[in-house]
């Protein structure tokens, strides 16, 4: 749509407006991994890791384009856009390293929402997500969740607004019998773990709420002080899906979250992508 044109009404498509929603790319008859992310490096894709921070310069992570810290004091939300504290736990560095291992040339931004204790952590998570969506990242990795019911509605609104603004939220699912968010929302990609070693092996789940299973067992990840750990958890399956999503967007930047999910589905190991 050109800047001069009026936006289409939300409820209808007038006959003369059909050519205004013409899609820029012709899709092949069969969507393959080669078409989806063949030769892609993640270049041009902006990925945000909402976590405990990222240790910049770690051999498995490389350069971190921006480090941001979110804090709440009383009623005031502070966004430190030049945070230098790095990673307070190691977990965010691990997630950043997994993403870079798949999409080495993606742009990486760290938004620290964890590490300052338990109290207020739900509100900080919410504000961090709000900030990240406003920045228009292509992919946001969330290897965390909240169980607080009072945040569910707001998180749902944020997840939907991300979806409509072409920001793909990729969130860790839970393996315990509790309700937590935002992974349960259909506007995000929710991720559980499988036991295979191939970082590109991922499975579509026809029985949601978990939509995809990615590599999450015995993953060698980056940790604090230049260290490495072998870790297991959906926390590490999630950045695998985020990294693959970044690769697809690197080849096809025009894709909406709906289209991106469709491509990921068609290329899943159990759908046709394994061939």
């Amino acid at each position: 749509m050109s800047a001069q044109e009026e936006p289409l009404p939300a409820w209808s498509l007038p006959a003369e407006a059909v050519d205004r929603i013409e899609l820029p790319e012709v899709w092949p008859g069969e969507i393959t991994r080669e078409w989806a992310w063949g030769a892609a490096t993640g270049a041009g894709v902006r990925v945000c890791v909402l976590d405990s921070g990222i240790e910049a310069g770690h051999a498995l992570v490389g350069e971190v384009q921006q480090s941001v810290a979110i804090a709440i004091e009383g009623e005031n939300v502070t966004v430190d856009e030049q945070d230098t504290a790095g990673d307070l736990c190691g977990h965010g560095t691990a997630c950043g390293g997994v993403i870079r291992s798949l999409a080495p040339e993606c742009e990486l931004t760290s938004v620290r929402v964890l590490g300052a204790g338990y109290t207020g952590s739900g509100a900080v998570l919410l504000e961090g997500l709000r900030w990240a969506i406003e920045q228009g990242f292509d992919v946001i990795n969330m290897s965390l969740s909240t169980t607080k019911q009072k945040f569910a509605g707001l998180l749902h609104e944020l997840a939907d607004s991300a979806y409509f603004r072409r920001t793909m939220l990729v969130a860790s699912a839970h393996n315990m019998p509790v309700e937590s968010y935002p992974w349960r929302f259909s506007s995000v990609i929710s991720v559980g773990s499988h036991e295979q070693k191939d970082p590109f092996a991922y499975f579509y789940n026809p029985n949601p709420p978990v939509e995809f299973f990615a590599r999450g067992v015995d993953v060698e990840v980056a940790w604090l002080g230049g260290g490495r750990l072998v870790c297991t958890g959906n926390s590490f399956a999630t950045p695998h899906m985020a990294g693959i999503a970044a690769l697809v967007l690197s080849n096809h930047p025009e894709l909406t979250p709906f289209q991106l999910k469709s491509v990921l589905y068609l290329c899943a190991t159990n759908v046709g992508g394994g061939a």
Partner: protein
Amino acid sequence: MTSDLHAAVAAGVLGTEESHRALLQSIVSVARAIFKAKASSILLLDEETDELVFEAAADEASESLIGRRFPSSAGIAGFVLVSRQPLVIEDVLTDPRFSRETAESTGFVPRGLMAVPLLHEERALGVLEVLDRPQDSRFTLAEMELLGLFANQAAIALDLLLRARRAESSLAGQGDLAVVARVAAKLEQRREEEELSPDIALRLLTELEKLL
């Protein structure tokens, strides 16, 4: 007032803190045995101080650990709590900074650990940790499932402990309710000893009516 009375009766009947602690202790002992681990512990979140407190531990130094506190932002346990995500680490020695201070203060530095948040309804109550599984056994998702089941049980036990503590503290300084609690506790004790016949209960009620 009704809820206070309920709390008083509950405090009398639900049992002591020791019995709930014994339940937690049993859970960590079984978790340690099932996973063939060197140690296992349950940490409770103290929301007032934003600290994690050792409530139960199964290992050589377990006694000295109970009651030890550290900030809820420290180490893997703190992260697991705030992120609500379970985490399994195979070899923490390769991490130069990871919660080493916390681990050393407990007198035990693990090589590997499994940590899972204890979630009850929408609250995160604490963390269950299982330390140093056998090194030759690879971690599988079936074990993660098992860990989740233990966590669920531990969360229920922690919730009971917290309820009992709340009930007890709600009685502090309230003489009449404390009496109700003691009466409830006595009746429960007699019932358990099978010495509470309908006859005794009726006589007690008659005397109470006379007094009140």
